[in-house]
């Protein structure tokens, strides 16, 4: 993906770049606003990482061969854009890792939940859980009677607060969204609503709603 696009005026590549940025921003925003861990966007992240690496290489090359003031300025702007991409990418991964830590036992409890994580996140989650168990054991659990050592009880597992309310923006109209105990509402494109996350998580997955 050539980023001399801005310098050489290639509209199609500009549009592709723009939509990658928009997709990353939406995925980042959803993950930051969601009370639980969302599905890992493997393809998108890989595409972003490839794009950023490619652009960085081109920037380095361009810097070494250009001394024209205007072009150097353009290169600086593009470097800032690369920084922004990198920030979104890293913030997304950070946000997810913090949720993996917080809800570690919950996420390991069944196959569907495990499936939300990337392979690396799952490895981290398992090792993190073992690390914490080992820490508790060494600090005091080994000294208490056997029957008290069980940490698998429901009240000791931190669960994501999926019943929290969230703000959503409607991308594609959806009908019969549950609001409150009885009401059902039709949401139209462009509207913004406050809903219980658990009532709309499926629509968010289908990209009909986005979190704001």
């Amino acid at each position, binding site marked *: 993906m050539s980023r001399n696009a801005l310098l050489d005026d290639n509209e199609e590549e500009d549009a592709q770049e723009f939509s990658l940025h928009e997709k990353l921003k939406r995925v980042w925003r959803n993950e930051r606003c969601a009370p639980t861990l969302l599905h890992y966007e493997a393809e998108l992240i890989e595409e972003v*990482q490839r794009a950023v690496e490619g652009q960085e290489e081109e920037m380095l090359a361009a810097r070494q061969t250009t001394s024209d003031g205007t072009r150097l300025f353009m290169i600086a702007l593009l470097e800032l854009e690369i920084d922004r991409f990198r920030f979104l990418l*890293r913030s997304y*991964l950070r946000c997810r890792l913090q949720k993996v830590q917080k809800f570690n036992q919950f996420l390991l409890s069944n196959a569907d939940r495990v499936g939300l994580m990337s392979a690396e996140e799952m490895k981290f989650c398992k090792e*993190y859980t073992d690390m914490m168990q080992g820490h*508790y054991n*060494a600090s*005091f659990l080994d000294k*208490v009677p056997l029957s008290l050592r069980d940490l698998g009880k429901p009240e000791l597992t931190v669960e994501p607060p999926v019943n929290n309310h969230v703000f959503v923006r409607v991308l594609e109209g959806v009908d019969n969204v549950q609001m409150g105990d009885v009401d059902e509402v039709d949401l139209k494109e462009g509207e913004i609503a406050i809903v219980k996350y658990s009532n709309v998580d499926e629509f968010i997955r289908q990209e009909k709603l986005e979190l704001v």
Partner: protein
Amino acid sequence: MLCDTAVELVRELQRDSWLPPYNSGSVNQVVKETLEVYQSAAETMRDKPNEEDRTHWDILQMTTQMACLERNKRCVMAYHKHRAEEIMRVRWECGTSVMQQELQERLSAQELQLSNDYDRLLSNYMINIGEDISMDMEPPRSTKITVRVLKDYGEIATMEGSINLVRNSEHYVRRIDVQHLIRQGYLEHVSS
């Protein structure tokens, strides 16, 4: 009263700006109390294996004892969990695996081990994904920033050559070359 030590242990956490020194005395006290209560309940179960032989008083006592055991466990878990989470938070804030000496002194041996283990876990994860996610903690406003040197650091290599970081000097550098030094307290971002 039963569980007083455990509850006090948790309360203690609020009294310091970070973490108070690890209170192994109280933790051991709670473990001791837990064992005693457990023994007492176990004795009753042993002496009166049939439910019909147990008086109302026995049942009341055992219910209270079970509640005490649970409470002690929850309190001690909460104490350790909070401390562990604070240790991990410091790792993220400082961006480095080396914790300041005055903070290290407040931790138990197991907590120091935890700190090392977590650092290793995090480093391995970042190597696996090929991204250093402890960098770029804030949205970038510009590629280059002005920084003032707070403590002598020596020479660093940047994309534009090497720079000597001497106390009180100011430099206009790329953010990514120096952000880790800002977090460790060697440099200060001077806002323009």
